[in-house]
């Protein structure tokens, strides 16, 4: 089994004093974090079925124990240079919510890194990055051991552009 049920691990117990825990992962040398409560599971990369006429950062869909889950390549989404998928390439399966519904989606990242506990006031607001990684997707920046970690707002990121449910044909029904 290549699936690691990270949520079961004992080290991750939310502490009551305003700290939130983040799962961080590497992407082109930078460390990014997502709210750990949104992480459903982490699994190894396995080939996906391509969906026609979708942007190239949509890798396709996979079968996750009977549900069809779309996979987003985060490098391609951020217009970073492509990296061949290797043994450390993982898919982080996330629960994404938007106004209309809750979805399960996977993101392909270079590798998972660590779990940090960060309080809200440790998060610094981010400057404007430019178009690809819009400041809107960034919840804030945190400094951990002199390193910068970019905390992502996955709801905004995975509901942006073509991934937005609202402009899909489905809503016209």
């Amino acid at each position, binding site marked *: 089994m290549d699936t690691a049920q990270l949520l079961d691990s004992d080290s991750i117990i939310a502490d009551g004093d305003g700290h939130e825990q983040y799962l961080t992962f590497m992407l082109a040398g930078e460390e990014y974090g997502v709210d750990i409560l949104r992480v459903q599971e982490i699994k190894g990369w396995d*080939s996906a079925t391509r969906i026609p*006429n979708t942007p190239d950062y949509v890798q396709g*869909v996979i*079968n996750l124990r*009977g549900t069809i889950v779309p996979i987003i390549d985060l490098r391609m989404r951020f217009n970073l240079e492509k990296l061949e998928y290797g043994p450390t390439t993982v898919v982080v399966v996330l629960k994404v919510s938007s106004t209309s519904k809750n*979805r399960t*989606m996977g993101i392909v990242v270079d590798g998972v890194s660590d779990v940090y506990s960060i309080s809200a006031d440790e998060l610094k607001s981010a400057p404007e990055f430019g178009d690809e990684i819009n400041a809107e997707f960034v919840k804030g920046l945190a400094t951990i051991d002199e390193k910068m970690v970019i905390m992502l707002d996955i709801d905004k990121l995975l509901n942006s552009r073509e991934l937005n449910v609202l402009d899909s044909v489905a809503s016209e029904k």
Partner: protein
Amino acid sequence: MSIDLSQFKQTFIEESLEGLDIMESSLLNLDVGEADPEVINTIFRAAHSIKGGSGTFGFNDIASFTHVLETLLDQMRAGERDVTTPAIEALLASVDCLRDMINALQDEGSYDEERVASVQKELEKMLDNEASNSQTTESAATIAPPEDELPTATGWLIKFSPHPDMLRTGNDPVLMFRELEGLGSLEVKADIEALPGFEDHLAEDAYLSWEIKLTTDATEDQVQEIFSWVDDECDLEITAIRPDIEPAAVVETAAQVVEEVKETAPQKEPPVAKKPAAKRSAKSTEATSIRVGTDKVDALINLVGELVITQSMLSQLGEEFDMSKLEKLRNGLAQLERNTREMQENVLRIRMLPISFSFNRFPRLVHDLTQKMGKKVSLKMSGEQTELDKTVMEKIGDPLVHLVRNALDHGIESPEDRIAAGKDPVGTLQLNAYHKGGNIIIEISDDGAGINKQRVLEKAVQSGIINSPSDITEDAQIFDLIFAPGFSTADVVSDVSGRGVGMDVVKKNIKALGGGIEIASREGVGSTFSIRLPLTLAILDGQLVRVGEEVYIIPLISIVESLQITKQAVNRLAGRAEVYRLRDDYISIIRLYNLFGSKPDSTDLEKGLLVVVEGDGQKVGLFVDDLLGQQQVVIKSLESNFKQVEGVSGATILGDGTVALIMDIGGLIDLSNSAQKKFSDGAVA
């Protein structure tokens, strides 16, 4: 009470709606003059359960409304009131009011209070009239609410002796006393005579009985209500205390007590009799829960048992396997396959409901509409037990209503016209459902005027759907015009139908479910609309095709044929759009790899295959590399986690665990047309 009742609210709403459906259909079955007491009983029980439930949950407006209704029904049941047409109409109106009120609870919205008040007033008026007319002295006591006659009552003497097993049903006398206390001041005397010795004492049995003196101005009903949950598990006597009567004068009250018991006796029925009644109709339009017969669940449990046995046999075989056991392994696998298939069929059956859930609303609809239109129609339904997937059923409801309305409005003539045409003045509308192959057929037939082909043609020309009547000659094609958008033959636009919106929507909805609709009609004799629907939306027979490394699934139902391409039959229109000559037809070729941006084995048409498919009434040829196999696939939604993709209706999981996309032929044709158009627009620019 300390119990959180909100969790049961949804159950109450669902059960009440079911109860209302029962009331409605029973009311429609009620014959004026000679009413079947069993039918009235059914209605009464439904009303009583709603009253009890709403009282418990504190929905007092519903409770008080139902109370009036119940009193009226009680009189009908006792034979003191004749079942008259106005009474039935009033009862039907009150069912509508109650449904509004309960729906308002569900959506936490509001209901039309004025209407409810006016209906309630009407019911009360009816009660008052009849009560004064009533001659029977004996039953007068049961009709007239005691609180009206005996305004001097200052309280109630309650003798409450629970049956030994009352506590086991979770009823606690303390809670009831606490509630009684809320009504007024309480004097409780416990009778401990029945209490056994310590060694014989069973902790779960009730031994005590009580005599309670309640000083209050509450009505007897309010007191009854508190005991309503236990009235078949205890002996209860409620006596009024009036200043001039000594509460201890038991002899005097004895006669009254008998009456009280009489009054409460029928009320014992609801909790027991409610279950089978509710089962008969479990329709609730938006409810997401589903009621499943225990037989279906039992069958499933049996199958799971078999599956477990097969599995353990196989794992045992696997532990010490050698080639000599190969035959055994094969058998085991065959058994596993059989089990799995049976299991799949049974699980699907759980989602199946009899079509009566959908048909049930029609008696009322027909009743209302015929009154409005001054027509006489008898409704006949058959095949109500035919089972259909719940989702399909929900989506077919509105189209069916539309067709029934149409049949009543345009199909069946007025009684005068019918007599003039030498027909029975009472028209017949027939709803029929049956299985045929993997489909369910629903037929709506009337013995009305039939479709006037000449008028259909004229109207079609008028509304610009066709150019001249001579374009179309075949009957089926003429009838098909009815489904064209903007078509209506009605001379007068009534509020029932005739706006020309609808039939196209009906057809669209049925198509969206993967079904079809056909019309057969003879002028002067009648029309039949036949709807064909797939039994389930969850599974489809698919043809697996390969384009390069990708596998797609084409619904088998849309495939006309598959063939090898001969170069001579391929022509190019304007040097670009490819068409294939298929016998006498020309069909356009869609190269799937172009449309889906995949890498094919070969772009040479002769090296691949052409799958001729039909979608939206149009035939096209799909160019694929290879045909793989046919199999039943379980449809999974792409939308639930992603979004709808043009040309793809869903996805499925193949035997090897990978995902394959299921093609939506209609969408594919649209996609190809817009791609063509884009190209030609680009070429012009």
